[in-house]
């Protein structure tokens, strides 16, 4: 999976935030819709689609979507 595909997957977990707001350098935790539900959805979709397990610490250790993607790739 490349970064653009990941961004599409990522944005797909949000109901209200327009897709064009998701860029590699988006500070995703500052999005209004970022909460426990969207974060759990990201964990679930990464598990299902990439078969990688992310944890709360991965969110703490990344700020942009690209950083999160790189963290996941390193697993």
């Amino acid at each position, binding site marked *: 999976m490349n970064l653009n595909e990941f961004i599409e997957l990522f944005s797909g977990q949000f109901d209200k935030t327009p897709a064009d707001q998701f860029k590699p350098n988006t500070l995703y935790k500052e999005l209004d819709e970022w909460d426990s539900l969207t974060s759990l959805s990201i964990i679930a979709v990464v598990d299902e689609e990439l078969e990688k397990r992310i*944890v*709360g610490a991965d969110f703490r250790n990344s700020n942009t979507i690209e950083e999160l993607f790189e963290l996941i790739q390193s697993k």
Partner: protein
Amino acid sequence: MFNPFSLKDKTILVTGASSGIGRGIAIECSKMGAKLVITGRSLERLNETFSALEGNGHVIIQADISIQEDIERLVSESPLLNGCVNNAGIPKISTVGFINRDSIEEILNINTIGPILLTSLLLKKRKLQKQSSIVFISSISGVVVSNTGETQYSTSKGAISGFVKGAALELARQKTRVNSICPALVPTEILELSNSFFSEEQLKDKMYEKYPLGRVGTPEDIANGAIYLLSDASSWVTGINLVIDGGFTLA
């Protein structure tokens, strides 16, 4: 000294006794004079619980209650019982849109179907004597409240609440009582299974902010409720969900 909470001369089966709340229940019940039959998946950890039990006459039967053959062997090897604590369980965190057949079947097998089938077989094979007490370790999740990501867990525990009511009504004829305990958060090894999702700070927030009594639960808090429900002190109590939550559901 008169003690209505005594478990002397009672033999109690505890599932999931290899760790956490189950281990705490087994140990505290032994202090109240009970003979324990402890079961769980890990023999090594069951031995640790066993060595912490007070008194003697306790036995270990290794079994995985999500496996039918294990349930059958557990029941056939078990001595006559006066009580059973269905405690074994797992958490699972996922949003509703990501529930799949494997995930829901796994949690229902361990948290709901296994305990129900074990209880049923103990009764059918007459291992639970008349005037027994059957206790389910349920949760406030699914019975009183729920939380984001906990839907499958809530489902598994809510079903137990329904079973408790039906079974309590049927078994009242033989004076056997069926109740559940609904704890709020009791930090044990079970949390490590929750995807390690929560950070230390988040847990700390959960632990102190939401509990009017200022702390989360301990296995002993839950064990004391189990002692009450297993003892003759609760002879007139059946079909209840005993909430033990430090006031969590008040706020």
